[in-house]
């Protein structure tokens, strides 16, 4: 059985107090508790402070380009659907640069888990605004305040076809690792949006701010109802951030609907040799 230490790579270089520490720990806890070791899963990292976890976490991994982790993850899953595939990305990475990929991964119900570090800013490029920042947020790239309204990751994912959408908080490692475990266990596309303070560049969405605005979904909350999940997710716009599984449903996953992948994984499939079947069409 693997331990937290087995998953630990280099010592993190995140700023002291960064929410990424909590996320990094929760990810490792979830993997250990699920009985994985660094050989048994694939992780794709985006570019940003979140993506820098690549060097702090041991696993078969790709440290991708900015925004492109989701298609990399889909490719890994299609080639070897027996490997659990997790994408660890940032808000600019996933909701900005790679927004189109997220939309279509939700539609496809690809069996991958996407964990988004949502801190409202671009930390690695020293504090420009991210797509999840509140309207009016002042940053280096928006000194007069951002004109756009924020993206709502929860309602976006739910209405685009994601079959598991959860939210957690970097300051609550126990809750977060529970959400990650549920997301990975879920068969289909799962998104975990992690609210995370950036202690260096976001002076608005601090630990104190989040502690004031987050709340855990009630025990009797029903995540299977599409419409009520959407209205629940819309509370984000009123600075009320629900934590927990906001939406969960079942729909056939992408790779299970491909005949070629019914018997075995794509990489294990035998070479096609019955050429008469295709050559005849050219005569």
């Amino acid at each position, binding site marked *: 059985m693997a331990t937290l230490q087995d998953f630990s790579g280099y010592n993190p270089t995140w700023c002291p107090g960064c929410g990424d520490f909590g996320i990094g720990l929760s990810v490792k806890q979830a993997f250990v508790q699920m009985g994985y070791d660094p050989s048994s899963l694939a992780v794709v990292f985006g570019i940003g402070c979140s993506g820098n976890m690549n060097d702090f976490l041991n696993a078969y991994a790709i440290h991708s380009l900015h925004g492109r982790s989701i*298609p990399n993850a*889909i490719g890994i899953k299609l080639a070897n659907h027996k490997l659990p595939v997790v994408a660890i990305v940032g808000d600019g990475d996933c909701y900005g640069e790679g927004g189109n990929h997220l939309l279509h991964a939700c539609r496809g119900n690809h069996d991958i888990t996407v964990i988004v570090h949502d801190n409202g800013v671009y930390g690695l490029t020293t504090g420009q605004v991210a797509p999840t920042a509140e309207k009016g947020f002042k940053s280096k790239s928006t000194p007069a305040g951002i004109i756009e309204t924020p993206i709502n990751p929860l309602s976006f994912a739910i209405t685009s076809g994601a079959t598991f959408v959860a939210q957690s908080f970097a300051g609550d490692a126990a809750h977060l690792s529970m959400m990650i475990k549920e997301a990975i266990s879920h068969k289909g596309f799962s998104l975990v949006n992690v609210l995370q303070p950036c202690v260096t560049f976001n002076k608005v969405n601090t630990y104190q701010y989040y502690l004031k605005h987050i709340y855990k979904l009630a025990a009797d909350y029903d995540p299977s109802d599409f419409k009520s999940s959407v209205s629940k997710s819309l509370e984000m716009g009123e600075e009320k951030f629900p934590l927990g599984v906001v939406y969960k449903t079942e729909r056939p996953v992408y790779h299970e609907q491909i005949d*070629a992948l019914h018997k075995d994984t794509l990489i294990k499939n035998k070479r096609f040799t019955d050429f008469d079947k295709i050559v005849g069409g*050219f005569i």
Partner: protein
Amino acid sequence: MKNFTWMIGGEAGFGIMTTGLAFAKIATRLGYHTFDYVEYPSLIRGGHNAYEVHVSEKELTYLAPTIDVLTCLNKETYEKHKSRLTIDSYVVYDDSEFEFEGEVRKISVPFKKIMAEFKGQAVMRNTIAMGATLAVIGTPLEVFIKVIEEQFSRKGEEVVNFNKQFAKAGYDHVINNNQNLTIKMTQRENVETKMVLTGNDAFALGAVIADCKFYCAYPMTPSSTVLTTLAAWGNKTGMVVRHAEDEISVVNTAIGSSFAGARSAVGTSGGGFALMVESLSFSGVTEIPLVVFLAQRPGPATGMPTWTEQGDLLFAVHSGHGEFPKIVLAPGTVEEMVEMTAHAFNLADVYQMPVVILSDMYLSEGHKSIAKNYIDKLITDYKVDRGALLESLPVDPQAQGKAKSFPRYKVTEDGISPRLIPGVPGYFYQANSYEHLEDGHTTEEAAPRIAQVDKRARKWLTYLTKDFQAPKVYGEIETAETVFVSWGSNKGAVLQTQKKLSESGHQTAFIHFTYMYPLDRKKVMDVFKHEKRYVLVENNSTGQFGKLLLAEVGIEIKEKILRYDGRALSAEYIISKLNK
């Protein structure tokens, strides 16, 4: 039988393409060689479509300047193509629909009347036209009847018979009203079985031969039929084909699947490739194998989507930011496309780098008949070579049950490092888009940076030593008065140019490049050792290969024949420019 060219034209959206291909198959089934090309605008309805098929008893790699039989489903067909007619050309048309002046052999067929009589649907004008055409060229109707039976048998005998009557009406009308028809395209004896393939079909077939497991694309003319063909074959071949949301997703899905161990390819045209190039660089630094099919069309931007050009050679050569090795190939014919595609997958795996295969509209969408034996032999002889890929690795007993870091980017003499399939127990590593250490961890230190840059670059040297192919030479350079230098799909046109010029006593040679980049300086210099009149022939406006040859080898060719009007090069075009 003398070579002849048949063309059918009509309004887009009414089955011209299907009819053209059926004609090419009829000719090859009778034992003839064919080479064809389609002309169509970038829209589905309302424009003009034309499909021409060049037929010969000998192998063909080019189109002819004149049209011998022009089948006009509308007046526009005649107007657009009349300049290629001679007094011996037959024009099949309906004189109740339009009439024309012009000294040709007119064959009027009452399309309109037959359609009304049998209550046909619009596409069945093609069936009448094909019946009539076969009568003009002296081919028995039976071959076409067999094609109709194959095409419609699943829909029942009634549908088969309904279609047959249109073919017969067209055929009979010509036979009953015309004498002294001169072309006789009848069954030849002792001929080998042939296949009719486009360059895109050839890429698709080559990918299947190579055991490509994953193909990803976003539709873009002229590459789209690779996607549709491979998707249609998916149930049989077991290849997974993904039509992704955009070209950036396309290339990154393929990089993901390749990382996980599946041979993977993508296909696109210039605009889509432009979206992919950041990820080409990603494939380069992570050393994840990738085959890219780039079917060129005239740019810039949307350009002329359904026409042809070789405008993206230097773009492909320089694609991707930063410095990393890649291979660019440009097959010259359908046969070379099958063979080089299958080989490209081995090169990508062995050298762990992106391999770009350049095609263009002319090669991608034109059909050529090729011997089935050739394909059968390729299939039998092909060996999958996955290079340094490890599908398993014994667990290290010293690791005491713990997963161990695998040195994915180990510095080696030939630059090639062992690549482990993710999921193998006992190990892990990361494929890192950042510069990295041997174990994949990010580094910004000078020494490992230099070590990795040099390691990647050594793969190029290894490739040049082991796999680079010098250009092929056609004709004798030593005795040639003129030496043509060209690449990729211009091959057929230049070969035909040589043949025509030799008829008038002008001896030529032809240096044809297919291994475009990187170029081995010494091997190429060796081919150019004679003092000659070299003439560069390219289907673009800037002589891109000439620039590459100068930059990489130091050879400058001053005399250039360049065509960039969206049309393919032809012997007639090259000869007309040669002596100016």
